[in-house]
Protein backbone atom coordinates (compact mmCIF):
# COMPACT_ATOMS: atom_id res chain seq x y z
CA UNK A 1 0.00 0.00 0.00
CA UNK A 2 1.12 3.51 -0.73
CA UNK A 3 1.83 5.90 2.13
CA UNK A 4 3.31 9.33 2.69
CA UNK A 5 4.96 10.51 5.89
CA UNK A 6 5.70 14.02 6.98
CA UNK A 7 7.66 13.43 10.17
CA UNK A 8 7.31 16.95 11.55
CA UNK A 9 3.95 18.35 12.63
CA UNK A 10 5.45 21.80 12.98
CA UNK A 11 8.51 23.55 11.57
CA UNK A 12 9.62 26.93 12.87
CA UNK A 13 12.17 29.03 11.03
CA UNK A 14 13.31 32.63 11.22
CA UNK A 15 12.61 34.91 8.30
CA UNK A 16 15.51 34.94 5.87
CA UNK A 17 16.77 31.51 6.91
CA UNK A 18 16.53 28.47 4.67
CA UNK A 19 13.61 26.14 5.28
CA UNK A 20 13.07 22.43 4.75
CA UNK A 21 9.82 20.52 5.07
CA UNK A 22 10.38 16.79 4.97
CA UNK A 23 8.46 14.10 3.11
CA UNK A 24 9.10 10.40 2.69
CA UNK A 25 6.97 7.97 0.76
CA UNK A 26 6.37 4.28 0.36
CA UNK A 27 5.17 3.04 -3.01
CA UNK A 28 5.94 0.13 -5.30
CA UNK A 29 6.93 1.64 -8.62
CA UNK A 30 7.92 5.07 -9.89
CA UNK A 31 5.82 7.73 -8.20
CA UNK A 32 4.58 11.12 -9.18
CA UNK A 33 5.27 13.39 -6.19
CA UNK A 34 3.59 16.68 -5.34
CA UNK A 35 3.70 19.51 -2.82
CA UNK A 36 0.68 21.60 -1.97
CA UNK A 37 0.28 24.61 0.31
CA UNK A 38 -2.83 25.61 2.24
CA UNK A 39 -3.42 29.02 3.76
CA UNK A 40 -6.05 29.38 6.51
CA UNK A 41 -9.61 28.70 5.36
CA UNK A 42 -8.49 28.21 1.76
CA UNK A 43 -8.22 25.30 -0.61
CA UNK A 44 -4.90 23.62 -1.36
CA UNK A 45 -2.69 25.24 -3.96
CA UNK A 46 -0.30 23.27 -6.16
CA UNK A 47 3.37 24.18 -5.58
CA UNK A 48 5.40 21.72 -7.63
CA UNK A 49 5.65 18.14 -8.84
CA UNK A 50 8.16 15.52 -9.82
CA UNK A 51 7.30 13.03 -12.55
CA UNK A 52 10.59 12.19 -14.21
CA UNK A 53 13.89 13.78 -15.19
CA UNK A 54 15.95 16.18 -13.08
CA UNK A 55 15.74 15.30 -9.41
CA UNK A 56 15.57 18.96 -8.42
CA UNK A 57 12.29 20.56 -9.35
CA UNK A 58 11.43 24.20 -9.02
CA UNK A 59 7.97 25.47 -8.26
CA UNK A 60 5.93 28.49 -7.30
CA UNK A 61 6.96 31.21 -4.82
CA UNK A 62 10.64 30.25 -4.91
CA UNK A 63 10.12 26.73 -3.56
CA UNK A 64 12.00 23.71 -4.83
CA UNK A 65 12.09 20.03 -3.95
CA UNK A 66 14.59 17.26 -4.41
CA UNK A 67 13.59 13.74 -5.34
CA UNK A 68 15.83 11.13 -3.74
CA UNK A 69 14.93 7.66 -4.93
CA UNK A 70 17.33 5.78 -2.65
CA UNK A 71 15.97 7.53 0.43
CA UNK A 72 12.40 7.64 -0.92
CA UNK A 73 12.21 11.29 0.01
CA UNK A 74 10.91 14.46 -1.58
CA UNK A 75 11.82 17.30 0.77
CA UNK A 76 10.54 20.82 0.12
CA UNK A 77 13.06 23.63 0.39
CA UNK A 78 13.41 27.36 0.05
CA UNK A 79 16.67 29.29 0.39
CA UNK A 80 15.21 32.25 2.25
CA UNK A 81 11.92 32.01 4.14
CA UNK A 82 9.30 34.74 4.21
CA UNK A 83 6.70 35.37 6.89
CA UNK A 84 4.10 34.95 4.16
CA UNK A 85 5.30 31.35 3.66
CA UNK A 86 3.63 30.44 6.97
CA UNK A 87 1.01 27.87 6.07
CA UNK A 88 0.16 24.15 6.09
CA UNK A 89 2.14 22.06 3.60
CA UNK A 90 1.10 18.71 2.18
CA UNK A 91 3.16 16.15 0.33
CA UNK A 92 1.27 13.72 -1.95
CA UNK A 93 1.97 10.76 -4.21
CA UNK A 94 0.33 8.91 -7.09
CA UNK A 95 1.63 6.14 -9.33
CA UNK A 96 -0.06 7.27 -12.53
CA UNK A 97 -2.03 10.31 -13.69
CA UNK A 98 -5.67 9.89 -12.76
CA UNK A 99 -5.00 7.68 -9.76
CA UNK A 100 -6.32 8.80 -6.36
CA UNK A 101 -3.83 10.90 -4.44
CA UNK A 102 -2.29 9.74 -1.17
CA UNK A 103 -1.59 12.75 1.04
CA UNK A 104 0.73 13.12 3.98
CA UNK A 105 -0.69 14.42 7.26
CA UNK A 106 0.63 17.94 6.67
CA UNK A 107 3.33 20.08 8.24
CA UNK A 108 2.60 23.48 9.68
CA UNK A 109 5.33 25.96 8.80
CA UNK A 110 5.73 29.08 10.90
CA UNK A 111 8.17 31.72 9.74
CA UNK A 112 9.00 34.11 12.52
CA UNK A 113 9.87 37.75 11.81
Amino acid at each position, binding site marked *: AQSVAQPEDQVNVAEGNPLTVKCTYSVSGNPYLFWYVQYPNRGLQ*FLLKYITGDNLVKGSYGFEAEFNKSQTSFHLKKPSALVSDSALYFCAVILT*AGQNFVFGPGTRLSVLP
Partner: protein
Amino acid sequence: SQTIHQWPATLVQPVGSPLSLECTVEGTSNPNLYWYRQAAGRGLQLLFYSVGIGQISSEVPQNLSASRPQDRQFILSSKKLLLSDSGFYLCAYTQGAYNTGELFFGEGSRLTVL
Protein backbone atom coordinates in the same frame (compact mmCIF):
# COMPACT_ATOMS: atom_id res chain seq x y z
CA SER B 1 -8.53 28.60 -18.43
CA GLN B 2 -9.69 26.08 -15.90
CA THR B 3 -11.49 27.03 -12.73
CA ILE B 4 -13.35 25.29 -9.95
CA HIS B 5 -16.20 26.83 -8.00
CA GLN B 6 -17.48 25.56 -4.69
CA TRP B 7 -20.39 26.86 -2.62
CA PRO B 8 -21.53 27.81 -0.12
CA ALA B 9 -18.29 28.96 1.48
CA THR B 10 -19.69 28.78 4.99
CA LEU B 11 -22.66 26.90 6.37
CA VAL B 12 -24.09 26.51 9.87
CA GLN B 13 -26.71 23.79 10.15
CA PRO B 14 -28.58 22.12 13.03
CA VAL B 15 -28.22 18.42 13.72
CA GLY B 16 -30.68 16.43 11.66
CA SER B 17 -31.01 18.96 8.86
CA PRO B 18 -30.14 18.18 5.23
CA LEU B 19 -26.99 19.27 3.42
CA SER B 20 -26.11 20.13 -0.14
CA LEU B 21 -22.67 21.35 -1.19
CA GLU B 22 -22.06 22.05 -4.86
CA CYS B 23 -18.98 22.09 -7.00
CA THR B 24 -18.57 22.95 -10.67
CA VAL B 25 -15.54 22.87 -12.91
CA GLU B 26 -14.94 25.00 -15.99
CA GLY B 27 -12.46 24.70 -18.80
CA THR B 28 -11.96 20.96 -18.98
CA SER B 29 -14.04 18.00 -20.09
CA ASN B 30 -14.56 14.67 -18.39
CA PRO B 31 -12.61 15.54 -15.23
CA ASN B 32 -12.18 13.18 -12.33
CA LEU B 33 -13.96 14.81 -9.41
CA TYR B 34 -13.29 14.43 -5.70
CA TRP B 35 -14.76 15.39 -2.33
CA TYR B 36 -12.38 15.59 0.63
CA ARG B 37 -13.02 16.45 4.26
CA GLN B 38 -10.46 18.15 6.42
CA ALA B 39 -10.98 18.07 10.18
CA ALA B 40 -9.30 20.51 12.54
CA GLY B 41 -7.20 22.11 9.80
CA ARG B 42 -5.12 19.03 9.30
CA GLY B 43 -5.15 15.88 7.20
CA LEU B 44 -7.36 15.21 4.20
CA GLN B 45 -9.84 12.37 4.07
CA LEU B 46 -11.08 11.29 0.66
CA LEU B 47 -14.86 10.87 0.81
CA PHE B 48 -15.97 10.30 -2.78
CA TYR B 49 -14.58 10.34 -6.26
CA SER B 50 -16.14 10.16 -9.70
CA VAL B 51 -14.69 9.30 -13.10
CA GLY B 52 -17.85 10.11 -15.04
CA ILE B 53 -21.52 11.11 -14.93
CA GLY B 54 -23.42 8.97 -12.49
CA GLN B 55 -20.26 7.08 -11.43
CA ILE B 56 -19.54 7.55 -7.74
CA SER B 57 -17.08 5.67 -5.58
CA SER B 58 -17.23 5.96 -1.83
CA GLU B 59 -14.06 5.70 0.20
CA VAL B 60 -15.55 5.88 3.67
CA PRO B 61 -18.99 4.63 4.77
CA GLN B 62 -20.77 7.50 6.47
CA ASN B 63 -23.72 9.80 6.65
CA LEU B 64 -22.92 11.50 3.34
CA SER B 65 -23.60 10.81 -0.33
CA ALA B 66 -22.41 12.29 -3.60
CA SER B 67 -23.88 12.70 -7.05
CA ARG B 68 -22.63 13.78 -10.44
CA PRO B 69 -25.63 14.84 -12.50
CA GLN B 70 -23.53 16.57 -15.17
CA ASP B 71 -19.98 16.13 -16.44
CA ARG B 72 -18.58 19.07 -14.50
CA GLN B 73 -20.92 19.16 -11.50
CA PHE B 74 -20.35 17.31 -8.25
CA ILE B 75 -22.72 17.48 -5.28
CA LEU B 76 -22.20 16.36 -1.69
CA SER B 77 -25.36 15.66 0.27
CA SER B 78 -26.72 14.42 3.52
CA LYS B 79 -30.32 13.72 4.56
CA LYS B 80 -29.63 14.23 8.26
CA LEU B 81 -26.48 15.90 9.54
CA LEU B 82 -24.59 14.68 12.57
CA LEU B 83 -22.32 16.72 14.83
CA SER B 84 -19.40 14.70 13.49
CA ASP B 85 -20.08 15.99 9.97
CA SER B 86 -18.60 19.36 10.91
CA GLY B 87 -15.48 20.16 8.98
CA PHE B 88 -13.92 21.81 5.97
CA TYR B 89 -15.05 20.20 2.72
CA LEU B 90 -12.93 20.48 -0.37
CA CYS B 91 -13.88 19.70 -3.93
CA ALA B 92 -11.09 18.90 -6.35
CA TYR B 93 -10.53 17.70 -9.89
CA THR B 94 -7.94 16.29 -12.20
CA GLN B 95 -8.11 17.01 -15.90
CA GLY B 96 -9.79 14.55 -18.17
CA ALA B 97 -7.88 15.02 -21.39
CA TYR B 98 -4.18 15.98 -21.20
CA ASN B 99 -4.03 14.95 -17.57
CA THR B 100 -0.72 16.20 -16.20
CA GLY B 101 -1.33 14.67 -12.81
CA GLU B 102 -2.11 17.69 -10.68
CA LEU B 103 -5.14 17.81 -8.43
CA PHE B 104 -6.83 21.23 -8.43
CA PHE B 105 -8.84 22.32 -5.39
CA GLY B 106 -11.77 24.61 -4.79
CA GLU B 107 -11.73 27.16 -2.00
CA GLY B 108 -13.62 24.91 0.38
CA SER B 109 -16.89 24.93 2.32
CA ARG B 110 -16.77 25.17 6.08
CA LEU B 111 -19.65 23.29 7.68
CA THR B 112 -20.55 23.69 11.33
CA VAL B 113 -23.23 21.40 12.69
CA LEU B 114 -24.77 22.57 15.97
